[in-house]
């Protein structure tokens, strides 16, 4: 084949450009740590990576929600636990009041105020807040739900509503966050009030009846606590799952996106050598002698 001078130059420039482009691509990989810089480098791989990233971000939001819900439920659990303790204290007081060794005056002046204190504490518990929101007031999270009726002092008013909060803790997976059973709480308050009034008025029959009421309240609070506990376990499971899947997704993403540094640097060094060789050859080819140099 006949080789003209322009052919050699053009070919050389072409080789140099090709190799320079390869070098550029490899050094971009090493510098950015990512295999692909643009979607066009590998559309299929990139869209898979995008989907993973999207799932990760959604999972993060679910995780934040689940953690918050977990906190809410823990507050609820503590309130119930306190309420159980209070009912036990109330039961003890009633037992004490039923004892024959105590007189009417002592019942009214020592035991009744203590029972009233238990009522106040129970109301405080029912007004528990999680991050400044009342956990037992349904959707009325900004309204203090329970308050003793200031008029007759023998009734607890409920200002919340019957709202049940549904929250997502995963795609298509939701949980009811709040326990909203004002009738059970009211029953507890009423039992305590009944005991207090009986102590005040020294009414033995009423006091005995309140014993049964308190036991019922104890059971229903226990039931509510169990329900809350079951939901807490569900949320805890969701948190564990979300954290685990986040980890899995991250490593999957890294597999799709991240450069294997050792390999990339080896490739880069290799390409540098090639590029140098191309320059060397090019320099010789372009500046090679021709017949004009030798003629005299």
């Amino acid at each position, binding site marked *: 084949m006949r080789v*003209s001078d322009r052919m050699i130059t053009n070919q050389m420039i072409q080789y140099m450009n090709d190799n320079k482009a390869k070098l550029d691509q490899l050094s971009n990989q090493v510098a950015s740590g990512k295999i692909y810089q643009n979607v066009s480098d590998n559309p299929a791989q990139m869209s898979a990576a995008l989907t993973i990233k999207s799932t990760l971000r959604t999972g993060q939001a679910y995780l934040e929600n689940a953690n918050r819900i977990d906190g809410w439920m823990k507050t609820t659990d503590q309130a119930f636990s306190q309420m159980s303790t209070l009912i036990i204290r109330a039961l003890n007081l009633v037992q004490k009041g039923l004892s024959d060794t105590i007189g009417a005056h002592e019942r009214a002046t020592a035991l009744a105020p203590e029972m009233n204190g238990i009522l106040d504490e129970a109301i405080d518990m029912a007004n528990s807040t999680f991050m400044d929101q009342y956990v037992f007031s349904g959707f009325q999270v900004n309204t203090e739900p329970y308050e003793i009726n200031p008029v007759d002092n023998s009734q607890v008013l409920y200002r919340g509503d019957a709202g049940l909060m549904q929250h997502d803790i995963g795609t298509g997976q939701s949980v009811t966050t709040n326990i909203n059973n004002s009738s059970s709480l009211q029953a507890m308050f009423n039992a305590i009030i009944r005991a207090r009034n009986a102590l005040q008025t020294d009414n033995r029959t009423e006091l005995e009846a309140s014993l049964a009421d308190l036991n019922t309240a104890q059971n229903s609070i226990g039931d509510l606590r169990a329900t809350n506990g079951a939901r807490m376990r569900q949320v805890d499971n969701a948190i564990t799952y979300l954290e685990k899947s986040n980890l899995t997704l991250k490593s999957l993403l890294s597999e799709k996106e991240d450069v294997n540094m050792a390999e990339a640097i080896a490739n880069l060094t290799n390409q540098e050598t090639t590029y140098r060789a191309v320059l060397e050859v090019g320099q010789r080819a372009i500046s090679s002698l021709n017949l004009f140099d030798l003629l005299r």
Partner: protein
Amino acid sequence: MPNLFAGVSLALQSILSHQASVQVIEHNVANVNTPGYKRQEAVLKSGPAVSSQGASYNVGVGQMGTGVVVDKIRRFSTDFYDMRYRSEIQSAAQYNLEASILAQVQAEFSETSTNGLLNKLDEFWAGWQRLSADPSNSALKAELVDVANTLTQAIKYRALNIRTVQAEQNLQISQRVDSINQLAEQVARLNGEIMRVVSIGEQPNDLMDQRDVILDELAKLSGATSFLQPEGDVIVSINGHVLVQGVTPFKLQTYADPLNANLSAVRWSDGQSFNPSSGELAGLFRARDGVLGEQMQALNDLASTIITRVNDIHLSGYAPGKTNTLASNNTILSIQAGVLAVGQTEVATGSYFIETRLDAGTWQFRMVDTTGNPVSIQLSDLSGYSNDWQDIPTAGGLPINYDTGRGITLQFGGDLSLYSENSYTSGAATVQFYEQQEFFTGTDALTIAMNSTLLTNPYLLATASAPNQPGNGDLARALANVRTENLMNGGLSTINQFYTAQTARFGVEIRRAKTNAADRLTVANVIDQQRQSISGVNLNEEAANLIKAQKAFEASARLMTVIDEMLNTIINGMGIVGR
């Protein structure tokens, strides 16, 4: 009869011929780097033979050669390769320009950084998700409003970017059309000169080189093809329409296409449409109208779907903690400016009254303005936009709340006859007023924006599915779950999936253009190499030919000297015997 003086002219002829050879070689060497130059060669031929007449001195019978002449200056033309080259380079140029235009917006669409639109979409859904768990948290609301605002800006920015790149092509188009017109004129002029030179039997080598270079350029720009005619001219045409015929060029012109957002389009000066099938202009149109047009359409689909769906849900909800009871215990509604500013289904700013009547045993109501004219309101079941009497809904024989669907709840209670027709002053009803807002305004990717009222008052965000329930995050939850709704592609994919697919598709388009450009360029380069192999200048070859011509020139000069001496012998040496 051989003639000694003829020898002088023979030697002269030889000297001149080889001098011409050297000149052609000089021309080659000088043009070693000229693009499109095809090497030339002085083709030598032995001169016409002359019959020896009057063979009286017994020198034999036959013809005498008369030395050497330059037959023609031969051009190493490569017409076949030229055509092959042009058909490849026009495709290469097409894909190359397409890829380079698309690469301008690729950074926007690459989604590799945290600035990706997908990232912002996810943040938007996550914002609602967080708000659903804690709907009365004002910090989350402020954050969501900010995220949503960034999302609208990101969508708008992408759309604007596409529009800008599309509009920038107007200049590219007009520059190329100008070039094509100029080149066509040059071809026409060269056609004229070439035909003139050919008609007198000569070969216009350098003019043809020039024309070939222009034809390469025209193929690259517009995919023009050319046909060589016997008179030496070429007919150039672009996808079936003649660009140059003989000495006549046909012009192209640009115009703003009203059917395509007033972007530049090209037509022939005779009004016919210009549809290049390859070349840079074809690549440009494919990038601008095909790929970018489709991406623009996709962005518009995405934007309008988000706007419609989010607004629908948001308008059905309530902002907790921001419910006003207006005009309690009377029927006057005072509607304030900017609060219910949503579309034409709203009642305008002003004061209104509720009228009731008993119609065949059924209580009905309507809204009237202060002068008693009925006002159209949208019903909550969206059944109609009407100013007619509406039945007051009842349950168990008692009137219940009537939600007009746009933030006004009429709470009928007590004695309905108190509202009676044309009596606006008293009544036992409560008119509750809940602020409801569209979330987004605009209709497509270029106009999408956050509702400015929400932007400045994030507390107006609707998160609850019912009024007066600050802990109710059901609406926020419904909005967060729009993420998983199959709203795009006729119910086949979610918004995120749709956008991811579009991004991948854009990547595929760029890769297709780049790969095709590289492939075609490789083929074009190979053909160019072959072309060069035939017509390119090789300095070694020229040097050898130069020496060859030089030696022949020297020999011819020596010949002249010999003949000179022979003449000298005859003139000065003959007839002086014995002198």
